[in-house]
């Protein structure tokens, strides 16, 4: 249930102790059975039903002394409890307002006050969990989401269940490991993604480990180090081993969210130093009406350490703008435009590319989701390539889909497929590439 509506409903409850509107003409005979019901319910301790019955008595016989006395007695007993309930509901409303304004400390205090009302424990716990998750207090967040996940409100319980899983996998210090295997129909590669037309299919094993540190939770500075490996069955010369790190700052405002990040990446190809890259990236998300706009820009200084690829060294820039829209809670659609530019030492390799993309994220079931993306990019090389005898113009159609399944608290499975179809005005540079694989991911918040 929408918590705002819940609170509004609680505050709007006219109460059983308000004025009674009598019928047009008194009817003491009709009041008699209500008196019996009221007395029986009051004796059984069911105040609400007794109040309703006594009110019906007074509607039919406004001067009924026992009904008036009973109503007065029951309502006096209710006054303190109702006042507390109203105060708790007001605290919840206040907490929501403060949360929207980004005043997290005050919001948490208000939500804690709302915990005193049993009816609001699930909703207040949910938002306390959200706040704890923001601050990186994953254990606290998990406890709050546990409480909210027992809510009779199915929507709230479902969202709390999903965030409980996230709380188990995040924290101020978190570790992720990923092991996988895939089939790649065309592993031959050059730094710009150019592949051989005939293709060279191979089996690939992948491994990744990443340590992330966020001392102040989802806000403020963060650091990340990672290592990865990609080994080939038939072409060990293309095995890639990499290590990298990033330092960044995250802003989590009431409207604008953003990050800026510096990173350093190192890659070895076939056991030989291959690439050293420095990168700087900024990203921002902001809601605009029913959609969320997300933009990012990155620049990367790449130095290839292998003589054969030195010409590719240079500056690479990328930018992207997307609009996200969620027509339902489980479905998010996105569409946008992305572009990139490469300024390489070998002038013939420099290019500018851009094109549209679209994506979707669909939660099939709790813990099971599918992500899909399709995009097309038109790449124009900026200089005439003498060996090729042409100025290249390529087109790339990319499509990918990933099915993610949370199999346990810290474990998930990923099945992925991808396709790239490359066309070129130099026919021998056109190719197709299919990839498909499975991976097992383990994530845990350590602190």
């Amino acid at each position, binding site marked *: 249930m929408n918590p705002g509506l819940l609170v509004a409903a609680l505050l709007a409850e006219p109460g059983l102790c308000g004025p009674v509107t009598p019928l047009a003409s008194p009817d003491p005979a009709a009041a008699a*059975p*209500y008196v*019996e*019901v009221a007395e*029986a*319910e009051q004796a059984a301790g*069911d105040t*609400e*039903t007794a109040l*309703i*019955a006594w009110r*019906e008595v007074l509607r039919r016989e406004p001067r009924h002394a026992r009904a008036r006395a009973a109503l007065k007695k029951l309502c006096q007993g209710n006054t303190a409890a109702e006042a507390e309930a109203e105060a708790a509901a007001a605290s919840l409303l206040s907490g929501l307002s403060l949360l929207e304004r980004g005043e997290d400390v005050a919001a948490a205090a208000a939500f804690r006050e709302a915990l005193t009302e049993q009816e609001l424990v699930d909703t207040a716990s949910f938002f306390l969990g959200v706040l704890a998750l923001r601050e990186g207090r994953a254990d606290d967040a998990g406890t709050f989401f546990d409480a909210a996940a027992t809510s009779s409100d199915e929507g709230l319980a479902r969202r709390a269940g999903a965030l409980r899983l996230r709380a188990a996998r995040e924290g101020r210090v978190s570790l992720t490991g990923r092991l996988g295997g895939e089939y790649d129909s065309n592993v031959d590669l050059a730094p710009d993604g150019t592949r051989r037309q005939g293709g060279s299919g191979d089996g690939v094993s992948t491994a990744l480990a990443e340590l992330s540190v966020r001392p102040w939770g989802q806000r403020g500075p963060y650091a990340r180090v990672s290592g990865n490996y990609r080994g080939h069955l038939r072409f060990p010369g293309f095995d890639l081993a990499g290590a990298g790190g990033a330092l960044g700052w995250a802003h989590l405002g009431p409207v604008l969210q953003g990050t800026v990040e510096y990173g350093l990446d190192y890659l070895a190809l076939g056991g030989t130093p291959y690439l050293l890259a420095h990168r700087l990236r900024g990203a921002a998300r902001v809601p605009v009406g029913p959609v969320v706009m997300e933009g990012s820009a990155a620049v990367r200084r790449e130095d290839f350490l292998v003589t054969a690829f030195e010409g590719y060294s240079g500056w690479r820039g990328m930018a992207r703008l997307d609009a996200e829209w969620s027509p339902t809670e489980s479905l998010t659609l996105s569409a946008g435009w992305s572009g990139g530019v490469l300024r390489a030492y070998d002038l013939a390799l420099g290019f500018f590319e851009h094109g549209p993309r679209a994506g979707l994220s669909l939660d099939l079931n709790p813990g099971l989701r599918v992500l899909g993306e399709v995009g097309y990019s038109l790449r124009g090389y900026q200089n005439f390539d003498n060996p090729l005898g042409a100025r290249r113009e390529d087109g790339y159609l990319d499509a990918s889909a990933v099915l993610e399944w949370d199999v346990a608290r810290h474990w998930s499975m990923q099945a992925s497929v991808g396709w790239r179809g490359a066309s070129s005005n130099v026919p021998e540079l056109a190719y197709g590439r299919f990839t498909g694989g499975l991976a097992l991911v383990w994530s845990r918040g350590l602190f």
Partner: protein
Amino acid sequence: MKRLALCLALLGLTAATPPDATPHLLQGARHFREGRFANALVEFKVAQRLGTDGEADWYIAASLVKLGRAEEALEAFSTARKQAPDARDALLDYYHALACYEARLYLCADTLLDAVGDASGPRIGEQVRKLRADIAVLFRSAPTPGSIDWYHARAAQVRATGRPVLAAHYLEEAVGLAGKREDRYRLAEARAALGKLSERPAPLVGGASP
């Protein structure tokens, strides 16, 4: 939908009720349909006092289910089955099953749900299948002595407060659960306690259906 069905069922039944009770049954049905279950309960109880040959007991029980008063609902259903067995239908059996489920009487719930099946429409049928699946998961393994102990203890508690029908419900569940264990844990004790009760609930299934 199920509320509407109750209302329609009620409209069909009121022809046989005394004239003074009819407006209260109708008003109760209106409250029930609109989700005001406490108001519905009051009107059905007034109708019961004015005399409805037992029909109002069914709706009192259904209202109690909606109000989360499962144990009282079980007693009301028992009264209704004795007073007006012909007034029962699949939808009311479904509410009865919900009361059993809420009171942790899973065997009772499963028996009723099995009888309901799809008889109350596809939407209820879907709920029936879901609940039965949940119950089946519970009984994948034999019940533990601890869980059977709980039913004995609850039966003793409610019996001490003068509620023999409810005590019988818990003891019948204890008998059923003991039957699922090879050692028949406390089975004889449950049967003996049942025999001493002054009143027993009406059989869950096998009554006439309109």
